[in-house]
Structure formats: structure tokens, C-alpha cells
């Protein structure tokens, strides 16, 4: 991270594995805050449990609430309702926000309270050793699906839109500029904003699925991503396995 952004950091080291996308996402979040000139005194980060939940806590120098597995959005709901002046960002993992915490997520989308929820989606339970998540692709190898995951993953964009979320975006961390732009728009919208950041996990997902090189993992992820406008032009066969990225809803 550049020196100019270091004032956002509480600690100068990180426990993320080499190649983890979560560090890039941390950079994107901090840049968005910096570019917006957010008042740090009234800035609150809430996270659950998992590697992704460590993105704000302890890294970011602001009020941080590191909660229980799955419950970050519920904690944030209480804090934001009581003090609406708090710019409240939830940053947590795919397992945390959409599996164990899925109920809180859809209800927060329904309430449309001004929370910005950033989901670091590595398609796996990273912290606990690479078990299947609600976002793991069909066929992927995991610690709990040794012969390939049999169950369809959530499409988180559709999930949140279906629950009433009006501001929804999805970007891979390999495209930081649009990711930062969506985070900024989400914060400024004053509404419930959901931003899915596809964030590779070389340690638990890449290695187990025989993608040993971090650069190759990123290359493949980026190649799988198509912007929504282009995706519309693809045939169903061409679309299979693609990740549709962009901004959705009333953005």
C-alpha cells in the first residue's frame, strides 16, 4: 500500500497468506474511504469471523467491531439504527455473510438500512481449512467435498436483489478501479449496498484444485469474468461458468 494511505492502518503487517485477494480488497476499501474523505470519527467497520473478517480488524484505524461468525450484519443493524451518523461498513467472507449469516443479509437488504456490505468471496471457508461454502462452484474440490462439490452455489447478486437490495455490484479484486468506484457509490447511496468482491484463496482453493501458481489463479479468475453488457450477448453455452460482473439494481 502506498505511504499516503498508511494513516488508515492500525498495524503495518498482515496475517493474510501470500497471494490472498483479501489484502487487495483491504487496499480498495481504504482507497475508497480516502477518495471520499470519509469522517473517520464516525466511521464504523463490522465484521464476522473468518479470514475476510480480519480485513478491517485489526487493520483499519477506525472503530472496528469484530463479531460472531455470521452475525456482522445484525450487529451493524443495531449500531446504525441507534446512531445513523455512523458510516457503517460490513466487510466479511462469503461463508460468514451468505451461509451462517444469510438470514441477516436478506433481512438487511429488505430493510434497506444504509449499510455498505462488502463480501470477500473466495468461494471457500478459508480460515477453517478449505471446506465447502454456499458459494463453492459445482465440481470444485474442497476439504469436505473430496470428490467435488455436488451443490449449486448462490448467485449472490441475484440473492440480494431478490431480497430487495437496490444497490448491488460484483467485481474481482483483479479489477480494483471499478471495485473502488462501486464501494464509493455504495457508501454515498445512503441505502443498503452490497458489493461482492471475488477474492482468490491460493492456499485453500487454488492448491486443492491444482492451480498452484497464484498468477495462474488470478488469470483464470479474471478470464472467467464478463461484464453484464457483454454477457447478454453470449449464448447459454458460452455463458456457462462465467462470472457476470458489474453494477446491478438501481445503481
Amino acid at each position: 500500500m502506498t505511504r499516503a494511505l498508511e494513516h488508515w492502518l492500525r498495524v503495518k503487517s498482515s496475517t493474510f497468506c501470500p497471494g490472498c485477494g483479501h489484502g487487495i480488497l483491504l487496499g480498495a476499501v481504504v482507497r475508497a474511504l480516502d477518495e471520499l474523505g470519509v469522517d473517520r470519527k464516525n466511521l464504523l467497520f463490522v465484521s464476522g469471523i473468518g479470514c475476510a473478517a480480519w480485513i478491517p480488524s485489526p487493520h483499519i484505524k477506525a472503530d472496528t467491531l469484530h463479531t460472531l461468525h455470521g452475525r456482522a450484519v445484525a450487529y451493524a443493524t443495531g449500531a446504525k439504527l441507534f446512531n445513523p451518523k455512523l458510516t457503517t461498513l460490513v466487510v466479511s467472507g462469503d461463508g460468514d455473510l451468505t451461509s451462517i449469516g444469510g438470514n441477516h443479509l436478506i433481512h438487511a437488504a429488505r430493510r434497506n438500512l444504509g449499510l455498505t456490505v462488502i463480501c470477500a468471496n473466495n468461494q471457500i471457508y478459508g480460515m477453517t481449512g478449505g471446506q465447502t461454502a454456499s458459494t463453492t462452484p459445482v465440481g470444485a474440490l474442497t476439504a469436505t467435498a473430496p470428490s467435488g462439490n455436488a451443490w449449486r452455489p448462490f448467485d449472490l447478486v441475484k440473492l440480494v436483489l431478490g431480497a430487495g437490495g437496490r444497490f448491488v455490484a460484483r467485481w474481482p479484486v483483479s479489477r480494483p478501479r471499478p471495485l473502488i468506484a462501486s464501494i464509493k457509490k455504495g457508501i454515498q447511496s445512503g441505502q443498503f449496498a452490497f458489493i461482492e468482491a471475488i477474492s482468490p484463496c491460493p492456499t485453500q482453493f487454488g492448491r486443492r484444485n491444482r492451480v498452484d501458481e497464484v498468477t495462474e489463479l488470478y488469470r483464470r479468475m479474471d478470464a472467467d469474468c464478463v461484464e453484464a453488457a457483454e454477457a447478454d450477448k453470449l449464448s447459454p453455452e458460452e455463458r456457462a461458468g462465467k462470472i457476470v460482473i458489474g453494477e446491478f439494481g438501481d445503481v
Partner: protein
Amino acid sequence: MRSEPARILMGNQACAEGALAAGCSFYAGYPITPSSEIMETLADRLPREGKVFVQMEDEIGSICAVIGASWAGAKAMTATAGPGLSLMMEGLGYAAFTETPCVIVDVQRAGPATGQATRVGSGDILQVRFGMHGDVCPIALSPGSVQEMYDLTIRAFNLAERYRVPVFLMADEGIGHLRESVFLHKDFTIENRVRDASRPPFGTPEPDGVPPMPVFGDGAELMITGSTHDEKGFRKVDDPEPHRRLVERINRKILDHEADIVEVEERFLDDATVAVVAYGFTGRSALAAVKALRRDGVRAGLVRLKTLWPFPRAALARLDQRVQRVVVPEMNRGQVAMLVRAEMNAEVVSLCQTDGEVIEPEAIAARVREVLP
């Protein structure tokens, strides 16, 4: 003495009035019998006072919203009954470990499971003390009248702020739905957490073990976590010493203040040879039983526990000096009797009733007669 006229209220309504009087500024909950009148009263009243009410998606969300609001500066509460309390356990342990003031009202009904939702019980007494994983030491109060639903709700908020701890009001369906007169008085003081951002929020050697608690927006750049943490809030997930220190402190800060926290009502003990130890609705039947026994010349006394946790050990030690026999009537399988037995040399006899009905004074008096020395 009391200038306000008495009002006739339901216990659950008196609880809501107590919360408002104590300065409750946030309620999050999920409907469940027999507690819902608390939620419904506050749903109407809190927004009218410019305060926050939210119906959450479940009880897990409720306790988490309460904790989030408390760190945003609210005096926050929720109310529930057995099944909801079970769902809240993880969040309650988090509240204890992060030293988050909050009030949880449990209007106990006949369990286990869904049990009998509209009938009375007191089966959750051990759950609030031992239901959370790891060693935590909450405070639990037991109201025995509609007046105490008001008074002890206020006390619950004060203790929560004073000790930075979740405080349980262990009501029961009998008290929650009882209607009787209550004074909504103002003769109490209000305690508030110390919002000092200049000292670490998780325990330097404060003399009383209770660190100050700045809230979001105070500029403290708080780091709150349910993982083991040092006094500033940094996670310490491998070192033995910070873990030991934190676990000991959050327990000691309550146990070292038993004398300040614990309240009991002692009746007819001067010449007593036998005593009833009771709490909650059963305390009312016990008082009636003791009075009836006395009319028949039996020297019976009563210790009514208004505090259940920390356990009123000193009061039981005092009682041990006086009586040889103790009867503990309870609407469960003897949860408190077990604890009384551990504290006393006197013979402790349990009177258990698990039929979803309140225990009648006659049943208590009959058991006392059976065990008379």
C-alpha cells in the same frame, strides 16, 4: 411517601415502564409468548420518545443488534422466553467477553423445547449461568411482583452499566402476566458507563475491574472482538497469560462485588427453625405458606432470592446459622435446590413441580410440615 398514584399493570408492562424509566434507548427483539407484551409496549413507546425499536429476523439477530447498539452508546435490551434464550447463547457469551452492557428479560415458560408456551416454569435458571461456552459470570435478577418487574428492570440497567455485563431479568409467565398495583416511582438513581476514551477499554488494573467504555463515534478507534484480547482490544489468540487475565477479570469483577449486587428478602427468620428459600412467582406462594404455618405455630421463615447470579451465598450462610431444615420449591427439577444444598449444612429438601402450573402455598406448607425437625 409515594406521590404517584398506584396503577394496575401487567408484569410485562411494568417491565417496559421500568426500562423506559431507566433510560432504555434501544430495543431489538423477536416475538415470543409469554414475553411479547414487553416488546409491544416498547414498540409503541420508544419511537415516541425518539428512541429506537426494531423487530429483528430472529433472536440471534436480536441479541447481536442489542450488542451493536450498546457499543453505539445505547442502553439496549431485548426480551424473550426459553427457545429464544437458547438461540441467544452465543451472542450472550460475546456480550460477557466483550463487556457489553445490556439487559435480557427472560419471561420463563414451561420447557424444554417449545414445551407449553403459555404456561409457567422456571427452568432457565442454570442456563443463563452455564449455557454459554467458557467461563462467564452474568448477573441475574428474579422479580417476585409487578412492582419488582418495574424496580428490578431499572436495577438491571444500572447493574449492566455499572459492571459492563449482560444482566438477566429472570421473570416467569406468572409474574409477566400478573396484574396488580404498581408505583411507577422515580426514587432511584441512574448509572451510566464511564465514556472515557483516554484509558484502555478492556482492562488496565482498574480498582474495581471495570474499565471505561467509550462508544462508536467518541474517537477512541475502538477494537472490539470476541476473540481473546489485550486491554486495547488487540487479538491475543495464542498467549496463555492474556487469556487467563481476561477470563479471571470478567468473572472477578462480578464475584468481588457480590455484596453490592446480591439482594434477598428475609422474613420471619428471628425464631425460625425451618425456612423456605424461593424466587420468582414461587416466592409469593412461599410467603403465603410461611404465614399460614406461623398461624399454626410452626416457626417457619422465608428467604426470597431477588438475585440468582451471583448466587446469594452470604444470605444462605446466615440462614445456616439459624435453621436445620430448608425447603426449596421450584417450577423445575430442582435447579436452585442443588445450589442451596452445596452452600448449606442444613438439610435441604427440594419441592419440584413441572406441570406448567404455579406452586400453591398449600403444597409448600405441606412439604414444610413433613420435614419439621
